[in-house]
């Protein structure tokens, strides 16, 4: 069978259909929604099941959680700035905003790990009661998503450094990560409201 290898730009001109990546990524986010919905439902069921152990009121430190929330919300804003710069093909500004986003995300994670360590040291690890199992599963899953997002962000930043033209492919990938990042932000707002605020009230 005769075939020829193509340079990238030719392939793009030849492609009959635009890429479906962003649509596919939306579909993935919807399945992730189902995952978080089931974890939230589990948490709601376990909200009072402390098994005689420490309660949420005893241990939650709302001012730290508020700082985490502020970091994550701000990182969504800075990612938005990165996307605006990407549309304008301003590569340097994109990388700068991605760097700020990374710092804010890493700060969020650092606070979260700190909080987890504090809870476990107080005897409220995931094995202590149904409440703490549900808490660590839900908040830990969100934290794992943020960690993956940070790895992804670094990979994209390296790709943009290697190919600074902000071509269609780079912008499309950045758009997918942007969707992911904002999605995690929305999930966190639910975590903040239903897990932290609701448990303390």
């Amino acid at each position, binding site marked *: 069978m*005769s075939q020829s*290898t*193509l340079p*990238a730009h030719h*392939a793009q001109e030849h*492609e009959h259909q635009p890429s479906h990546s962003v649509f596919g990524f939306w579909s993935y986010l919807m399945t992730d929604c189902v995952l978080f919905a089931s974890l939230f439902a589990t948490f709601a069921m376990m909200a009072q099941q402390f098994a005689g152990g420490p309660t949420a009121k005893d241990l939650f430190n709302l001012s730290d959680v508020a700082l985490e929330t502020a970091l994550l919300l701000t990182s969504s804003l800075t990612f938005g700035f990165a996307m605006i710069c990407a549309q304008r093909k301003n590569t340097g500004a994109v990388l700068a905003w991605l760097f700020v986003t990374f710092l804010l995300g890493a700060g969020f994670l650092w606070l979260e790990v700190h909080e987890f360590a504090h809870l476990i040291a107080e005897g409220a690890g995931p094995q202590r009661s149904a409440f703490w199992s549900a808490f660590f599963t839900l908040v830990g899953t969100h934290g794992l998503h943020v960690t993956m997002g940070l790895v992804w962000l670094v990979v994209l930043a390296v790709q943009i450094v290697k190919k600074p033209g902000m071509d269609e492919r780079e912008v499309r990938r950045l758009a997918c990560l942007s969707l992911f990042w904002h999605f995690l932000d929305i999930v966190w707002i639910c975590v903040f409201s239903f897990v932290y605020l609701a448990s303390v009230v």
Partner: protein
Amino acid sequence: MGIIALGVAFQVAQIVVSVIRRDQPAYRDVTGDPWEGRTLEWSISSPPPVYNFAHVPAVLELDDFAHAKETGRKETRSFRDIHMPSNTSAGFFVGVFALAFGFAAIWHIWWLAIAGLVGIAAIVIGYSFAENAGYIIPAATVKATEERNRPPKSPAQAGAAREMELEVL
């Protein structure tokens, strides 16, 4: 137990016989549709070409392929260049690391589980750096492939002829 063993033996025998007699005319399928299939997978030639479908199938009826054969509806679109994705071994290696990870997770071999996960991540990330520009199969090649495996036939006859062949065996 004995019956299961017999079943296994016949399955092996079937594969051996198929391999030994693969070049005999009665064993060769040149139509892509030896059993009068009703669904779209039988509409492609045999062996299946790398691009699978020369055109994206236009489905107008339930069991469209059967309907097309019954009413004599023919594909009228002309052949076009087909843009294929680049070949890659990434999926194979992800599978190898996923196997290692699955085994390690079941048996609690944590260093291997971590190595498996890191391996999967490294391959996926490495693959994301590839150009993946693909290649083009020219329309003429597509046409030749489709026509080589499609001797002109009327489906009903081909089915009957096929039964004759099998009876002769």
